[in-house]
C-alpha cells in the first residue's frame, strides 16, 4: 500500500554528495509520431474523443492479430543509429505478461533480450565548474520497440491512483501507439553533478529525437516520459571517476516513475539522492521499490515494492515474425540522419559569432531554429537574436509557452523579423520605432511594413525640418552651444535629446549629432 503521509527525512545535498556517490539509470519512453499505431492501422492523433481510435487489434479482441508498422521499425533504427548503437540483424518481439485493465491483452508486445538497437552512447554537455562546458558521455544499453498501454483515469479517492478510486475509466486510444524505450547503462562518475547530467541527458535526447523528426517529444503531453533509477554507494576517494570509487559495489536502487519535465528530472534525482542519503546515513537500508514524483511538493513517495513476484514471463511473440533489417536498409537510413544537435549547435555558433553565453541563451530560449530561419531570410545573426530574445521571448515566458509554439500561435514568423531588420538597416526605422512596429506585428496588425505604414512610422528623410529643429534647440540653449563650441563635444547629448523630442522620435540620432556639431564647429 502506498505511503504518502509523512514527508521523508532528507539529508542536505552537499552533505549527501560528500558521503555518497550516486549511480543512475535512465529509462526514457518516446512515443513515435507515426501516422498509425504499432500493430494496426488506427490513427495516433493526440487528444481525440476517448476510445474513438481503436480496432479489434489494439482493443485486443479475441482473434485479432498484430502486424508490425514498418515506419516504426524505421524510426527505431534511425534512433538507434543516432545514438551510435549497433543495429540487430535479426530480432524478435516478446510478450511481457502482467494483468492491468489498461492493457487490452494483459500482455504488452515489447522486446526482451533481442532489442533492435544496443551498445551506443550520447554525448551531453554539462558545466565544467569553472564557467565553461565539458562533454559527459552517457552510455546506452539498448533501445527497443514496444506498444503503449491505454490510459486510466481513476475517479474518486485522493491520490488519483487506482487504490482508493471509486471507479476507473480507460481510454484505449493510446493503446498500441509505438514506443521506443531507451535505456542507459549505469551512469557512474557524475558525482555531485548527477542531477545536472540527468537533465542534460534527457534534454540532449529530446533535441536529438526532435531533429530526427520521429516524435513530438512533448513531456507535458506524455509523448516523452522518463523513469529515473537512482542508487547511492559510499564515497571512496575524491574523484567520482577514480578507481577507488568505481570499485565500490552499487547500492540498492529505487525507480522514480514518470518524471515529466526536464526540470523535474533534475529535481527528482536530487531529491532521491538526499532521501536515500538520509536513510543510509542513519544506518538504514534502501527498499527496492518504484516511487512516484510529485511536481507540487518536489518529493517522491513510495509506490510498489519490487519483489521476486514481479515475473513478466517473457517469451518470443508467436504472432509476429522476426524483424531483420538488411544492412543495405540500415545504411540507407544512416544516410537520412540529421546533423547531430551538438555539432550543429557548434557550427551555428561559430557561423553566427556568438559567445558561449549568448549561444546558451539562444538554446535555452529554444530560438536556434528561429534564428537560423531568420538569418536565412536575410537578417544579421545578432539582430535576429536581439529581436527573438527580446519581446517575443518575454511574452512567451509570461504565457508559459515555449517561443516556437508561441510565435507559431501568433503567426509571427522568421520572415517578419527579417523584414523588421531590413527596415532598420535601410534607415527607414530607428530602434525605438522598430520596437513599436514589433508591438504592432505581435498584436496581429500585419507585416512590419504594413504596421509602419499604418502607424506613420518613418525616419524623416527631408532634412529641412530637422535642420530647423536643430537651429531652434541651439538658439534655446546658448550656454550648452557655447560649451560645445569650446570643445566639450560630449555636451551635445543634451541637445540631441531635445531635437529628438521636437522630432517626436522620428529622426536618426547619429544624423542629429552630426548636424549639431557641424553648426557649432
Amino acid at each position, binding site marked *: 500500500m502506498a505511503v504518502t503521509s509523512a514527508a521523508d527525512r532528507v539529508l542536505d545535498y552537499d552533505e549527501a554528495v560528500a558521503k555518497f556517490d550516486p549511480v543512475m539509470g535512465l529509462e526514457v519512453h518516446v512515443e513515435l509520431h507515426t501516422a498509425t499505431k504499432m500493430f494496426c492501422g488506427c490513427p495516433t492523433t493526440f487528444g481525440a474523443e476517448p476510445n474513438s481510435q481503436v480496432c*479489434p487489434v489494439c*482493443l*485486443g*479482441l*479475441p*482473434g*485479432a*492479430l*498484430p*502486424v*508490425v508498422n514498418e515506419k516504426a521499425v524505421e524510426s527505431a533504427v534511425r534512433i538507434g543509429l543516432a545514438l551510435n548503437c549497433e543495429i540487430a540483424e535479426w530480432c524478435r518481439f516478446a*510478450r511481457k*505478461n502482467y*494483468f492491468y*485493465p489498461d492493457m*487490452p*491483452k*494483459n*500482455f504488452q508486445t515489447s522486446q526482451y533480450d533481442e532489442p533492435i538497437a544496443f551498445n551506443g552512447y550520447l554525448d551531453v554537455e554539462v558545466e565544467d565548474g569553472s564557467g565553461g562546458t565539458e562533454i559527459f558521455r552517457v552510455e546506452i544499453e539498448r533501445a527497443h520497440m514496444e506498444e503503449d498501454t491505454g490510459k486510466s483515469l481513476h475517479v474518486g479517492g485522493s491520490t488519483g491512483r*487506482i487504490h482508493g478510486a471509486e471507479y*476507473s475509466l*480507460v481510454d484505449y486510444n493510446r493503446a498500441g501507439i509505438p514506443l521506443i524505450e531507451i535505456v542507459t547503462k549505469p551512469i557512474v562518475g557524475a558525482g555531485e553533478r548527477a542531477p545536472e547530467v540527468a537533465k542534460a541527458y534527457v534534454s540532449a535526447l529530446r533535441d536529438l529525437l526532435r531533429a530526427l523528426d520521429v516524435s513530438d517529444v512533448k513531456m507535458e503531453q506524455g509523448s516523452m516520459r522518463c523513469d529515473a533509477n537512482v542508487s547511492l554507494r559510499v564515497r571512496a576517494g575524491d574523484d567520482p571517476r577514480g578507481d577507488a570509487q568505481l570499485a565500490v559495489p552499487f547500492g540498492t536502487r529505487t525507480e522514480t516513475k514518470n518524471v515529466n519535465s526536464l526540470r523535474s528530472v533534475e529535481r527528482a534525482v536530487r531529491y532521491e539522492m538526499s532521501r536515500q542519503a538520509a536513510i543510509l546515513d542513519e544506518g538504514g537500508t534502501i527498499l527496492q521499490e518504484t516511487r512516484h514524483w510529485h511536481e507540487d511538493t518536489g518529493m517522491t513517495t513510495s509506490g510498489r515494492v519490487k519483489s521476486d513476484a514481479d*515475473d513478466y*514471463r*517473457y*517469451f518470443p511473440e*508467436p*504472432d*509476429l*515474425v522476426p524483424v531483420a533489417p538488411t544492412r543495405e536498409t540500415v545504411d540507407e537510413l544512416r544516410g537520412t540522419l540529421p546533423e547531430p544537435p551538438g555539432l550543429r549547435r557548434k557550427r551555428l555558433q561559430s557561423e553566427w559569432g556568438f559567445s558561449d553565453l549568448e549561444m546558451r541563451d539562444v538554446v535555452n530560449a529554444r530560438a536556434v531554429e528561429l534564428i537560423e530561419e531568420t538569418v536565412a531570410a536575410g537578417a544579421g545573426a545578432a539582430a535576429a537574436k536581439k529581436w527573438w530574445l527580446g519581446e517575443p521571448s518575454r511574452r512567451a515566458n509570461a504565457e508559459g509557452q515555449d517561443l516556437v509554439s508561441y510565435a507559431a500561435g501568433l503567426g509571427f514568423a522568421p520572415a517578419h523579423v527579417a523584414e523588421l531588420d531590413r527596415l532598420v538597416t535601410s534607415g527607414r526605422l530607428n530602434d525605438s520605432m522598430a520596437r513599436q512596429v514589433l508591438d504592432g506585428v505581435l498584436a496581429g496588425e500585419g507585416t512590419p511594413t504594413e504596421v509602419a505604414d499604418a502607424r506613420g512610422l518613418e525616419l524623416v528623410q527631408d532634412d529641412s525640418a530637422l535642420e530647423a529643429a536643430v537651429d531652434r534647440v541651439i538658439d534655446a540653449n546658448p550656454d550648452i552651444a557655447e560649451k560645445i563650441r569650446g570643445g566639450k563635444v560630449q555636451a551635445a547629448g543634451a541637445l540631441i535629446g531635445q531635437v529628438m523630442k521636437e522630432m517626436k522620435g522620428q529622426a536618426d540620432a547619429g544624423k542629429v549629432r552630426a548636424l549639431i556639431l557641424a553648426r557649432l564647429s
Partner: protein
Amino acid sequence: MNTDLTRASAAELADALASKSISSVEVTQAHLDRIAAVDGQVHAYLHVDAEGALATARAIDERRAAGESLPTLAGVPIAVKDVMTTKGLPTTCGSRMLEGWIPPYDATVVRHIKAAGMPILGKTNMDEFAMGSSTEHSAYGPSRNPWDLERIPGGSGGGSSAVIASFQAPLATGTDTGGSIRQPAAVTGTVGTKPTYGGVSRYGLVALASSLDQAGPCARTVLDTALLHEVMGGHDPLDSTSIDAPVPPVVEAARRADVAGMRIGVVKELGGEGYQPGVRARFDEAVALLVERGAEVVEVSCPNFDYALAAYYLILPSEASSNLAKFDAMRYGMRVLPEGIDAPTAEQVMAATRDAGFGDEVKRRIILGTYALSSGYYDAYYGSAQKVRTLIAQDFARAYEKVDVLVSPTAPTTAFKLGDKLDDPMAMYLNDIATIPANLAGVPGMSVPSGVADEDGLPTGIQILAPATKDERLYSVGAALEQALLERWGAPILSRAPELGADLVKGA
C-alpha cells in the same frame, strides 16, 4: 446425385446449383430440417442461424438467376467452428467466458466463406478454447458421435466432425493445434486437413497456441475437403505468419487422385504399442492399397517424435496462458463480482471472473503454462521444448529427403466412450500422439477414413503428412486411397453408420 440433398457431397451440390437444377434455398433448408431432426441427439451446433443462412442462400439464388458467374461453392451451406469470429453471430469458443459475446468483425476465413457465397448454418461445438480431444470440455455439454451416441466425436473440433458425419452440413471449418481437425475426422469416418502453418489465415481465430494453431477444412470426401481448403486459404496481410503464396493446387490433386510413383514413408514411431489392433489392421490394408495403386512404401524413423507430446504440452500451455490472459471481464464477455467483497478491485473482479468462467482443463493448462514460462524455469521447460521442436522439424526434413509423404494411423484408438478419459488428462492427451508432430513442425496433415475396426465397428483413420507448402500431396494420396476403398466397399463409409432418428434415442 442422392435425392436427399443432405447426403450429397459439396461437389455434387455445387454442380447441381451451377446447372440450376436445385436452389441454394432448397439445399440450405434441407440442412436446417436435418439439424432440427437430429441435432437434439448429436448436439453438434452451439448456435444455428437459420435466418442468416437462408438470406445468403436467397441472395445467391438471385445472383445466379441474374446470370452472374459465381464461385464454385456459392450456395453450398457450411458450418463454422465456434472458435472463429463471426460478425453479428455469437462466438463462444465453448466457454462460459464468452457467453453472449457477439464479435464486431469476421475472421478472415469467415470473410472468405462469405465472399464464396456460402450460407453459414451455424457455429459448431468444441472443447473450451479448443483444449481437449472429445468436446467433453465444452461448457455447453459434449457433442456425440453419430456412429454411437455414447461415444465422443473427437476434439476439439468434435462439433464440426459430428455435423459432417450426421449430414447436418456438407462442409465445416475446423482448427487444429495438435490434431483437433484430424482426430475428430478419424473417429467419425470423415476427412479433415490441417494445412501448412501459415497456409490459412489465423486472423479472427480465437488463439489457443499461436505457433501451433492452423485452420482447415472438414468434409466427407477428399475432393470436398480440397474445395473448401481452396476457399479458406491464401495470403492474408492481417496475419504476419501467413504465407505469401497462392493456395497449393489441392483441388487438381484431389481430382487426379494419382499416387503412381510416389514414395510413401510409414513412420516407425507412430503405430506400435498403444495402437488398437483394428486401427493397425485398417492402416496396414490402406498402405497395401496405395502400393497397389503404384506407390512405393518404405519405413522411416523419426526418433524425436517420442518427445513430441512432452514438448507440445509445454509450448501449448505457455502460449495459451498468455493468449487467454485477455479474458479478464474488463472489456467484453463474462463479468463476475467476487462474493463477500463490497467494493472489489479490478484484480478481484478479474480473479473471480476467471475462476467462474474457465473450466478445469483451461485452468489446468493456464497454470501449467504460467509455471513453464516463470523465470528460473523458462530454459528448462519452454526453452527445452523449443529445442525438441527443432529436432522434430529436422526429423521431418530428413524423412522428406527419402519420401514424398509420411503416413501413420491418425489416432491410436477408435472413439472412446463419453466420460472414459475425462478424469485422466494424460490418457486424453495421448490420443493426439500421432497428430502433434505436424503442428510442432508446421507441416500439413490430413486424416482420411481407412475403414472400421473389427473389434468395435467404429471408424478408423489414416494420417497423411507432407512437407510444408506441399499440401497438394495430401490430396493426391488421400483421393487415391478414398477411390480404392470405395471400389472395395462399394459405398461410402458413412453408409455403414447407424441411421439417426427417434429409434436411436436410448430406451425407445
